[in-house]
């Protein structure tokens, strides 16, 4: 991947990618009369970091929920790795290799850090009721899981907290734990919902490094974020949503100069003198 895979991708909403892991078409979700998501076409490039940005209420989180099965749209179809995920339950989406985290961190506070990690693992036969009654059937797998969990804890600087309750961690550490836990099942793609929200600046740096590291390991990352500095630092491609639609796409350094994006973020008349507007209104 020495060449930029995005070199030939046009900078326009719904642009096709050379190697798309996620494809979505005509996804429409409305709550009563309010249209939350109305995406015509959307693709995510494999092995890249894609940022999904947009002002509050743009429908980013709803779109996230739709793609991971936590919410159901009125119409639309979407696929992951060529398999349709329409109507698939969140659990099956995760098992297919697409794991998500949450905007409001869902670390399981009354379980220890290591137990949180073990819960994230896939293929533990002991999660079957009958096998659970016979420990020899799951002990070996449990050891493998623990080895992986401990390696991840060391990498995410949570090793000292191994046996503490997750509830005793700071907000930023919980974000790290949630991300590490999501990696337990060795997913192909990870979807992070505002990974930087509520994290103090010191931890933000290491969080960003971790996300870049994921990409280097071949994990596809899609994340929702508000902070443009973060987005610029790590993402390969940026998708901008506003009022439920994708209004722009492009590499991080050019997408923000797109007039439609500035419009959505700041309003069309953000540099117009208010008194002039009043004057023209009266003039009509």
């Amino acid at each position, binding site marked *: 991947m020495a060449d930029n895979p995005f070199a030939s991708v046009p900078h326009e909403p719904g642009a096709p990618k050379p190697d798309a892991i996620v494809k979505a078409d005509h996804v429409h979700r409305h709550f009563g009369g309010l249209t939350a998501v109305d995406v015509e076409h959307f693709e995510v490039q494999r092995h890249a970091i894609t940022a999904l940005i947009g002002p509050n209420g743009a429908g980013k989180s709803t779109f996230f929920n739709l793609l991971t099965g936590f919410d159901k749209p009125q119409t639309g179809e979407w696929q992951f790795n060529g398999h349709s995920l329409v109507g698939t339950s969140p*659990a099956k989406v995760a098992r297919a290799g697409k794991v998500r*985290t949450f905007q409001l961190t869902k670390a399981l*506070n009354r379980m220890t850090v290591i137990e949180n990690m073990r819960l994230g693992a896939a293929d533990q*036969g002991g999660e079957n009721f009958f096998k*659970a009654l016979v420990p020899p059937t799951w002990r070996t797998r449990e050891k493998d899981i623990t080895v992986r969990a401990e390696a991840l804890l060391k990498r995410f600087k949570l090793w000292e907290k191994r046996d503490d309750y997750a509830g005793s961690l700071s907000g930023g550490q919980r974000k790290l734990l949630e991300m590490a836990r999501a990696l337990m099942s060795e997913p192909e793609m990870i979807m992070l919902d505002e990974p930087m929200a509520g994290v103090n600046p010191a931890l933000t740096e290491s969080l960003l490094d971790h996300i870049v590291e994921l990409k280097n390991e071949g994990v596809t990352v899609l994340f929702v974020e508000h902070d443009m500095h973060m987005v610029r630092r790590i993402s390969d491609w940026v998708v901008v949503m506003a009022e439920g639609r994708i209004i722009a796409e492009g590499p991080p350094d050019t997408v923000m100069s797109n007039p439609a994006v500035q419009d959505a973020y700041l309003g069309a008349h953000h540099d117009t003198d208010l008194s002039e507007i009043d004057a023209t209104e009266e003039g009509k």
Partner: protein
Amino acid sequence: MEILLDALAEVFAPTTAAFAIAAIGLNFHFGLTGLLNMGVAGFMLVGMYGYAITTQNGAPIWLAIIVACAAAATFAVILGWPTLKLRGDYLAIATIAAAELVRYLGRSQSLQPLTGGSTGIRGNEFKFTFEALSPFPNENITILFWTYHGTLSSSWWLRVVAWLLVALFAFTFWQLARSPWGRVLKGIREDEDAVRSLGKNVYSYKMQALVIGGVICAFGGVVWALGNSVQPDSMGRPTTFWIWTLLLLGGAATVFGPILGSILFWVSLVVVRQVASSVIPDTWLSPIELEPFSLVLVGITLMCLVIFRPQGVLGNKRELALNG
């Protein structure tokens, strides 16, 4: 001295064991999974009807036990199927109503040939298969300070079997709670969506917990019936609340909590009743009023316990507290 012996007798009484078993069942629901089953007595009643009616119709004891389990499992599936997809409160509402439904069905006129209506099923109509298995002599036996019949009704034989069952179910709980299966349930207890996002089928796990806990509650019902009789009105809402109380008293989500809770509950009930009857003159409280009075005292004690030690006697406050 007599009070002490009576109180100690409660420690290993069949009723104490029956409530401990039901509380272990509830511990699978509430302690591990966070399911609010407010129909424990309903599960017990379904179990004892299943056992007693099958025996009445000439079935051997193993078949009666299978029927009791199957009835409770079916009851759990019927209750869980529509409600487990919804928020926890709905299961609470459905179970409390369903338990009352079972009780009213049991005492209804139209089912009298089967269930015996409001009088229930008398002990000698369904206890004989169990009593036939007794290795104890068919007479009164005195062990240490206590004299009970070897075989019949609330006997030494029933005490042995009941406490072996308590041990078996406590062991099962311990084994399952520390397994990966139990870990998924503990995750669900805290945040279903988090567990979903990790690829676990939450609905299926909640159903499994409801069924296994329900079947254990049914065993509690059968043990209770073997010591007393099948009587629908003895399995009303108060029974459910007592079992909740003693589970919280002992400590939810712990292995020995339900057992300790049941023992403390029954012992304190007897002590309070006996002390009250010897201390309070008849002119203040008549013997009929003593029973509710002792329950009130026990209730106050338990309220204090829940206020000052919400995790119960054995519970781990960091892992499970009542609030939040």
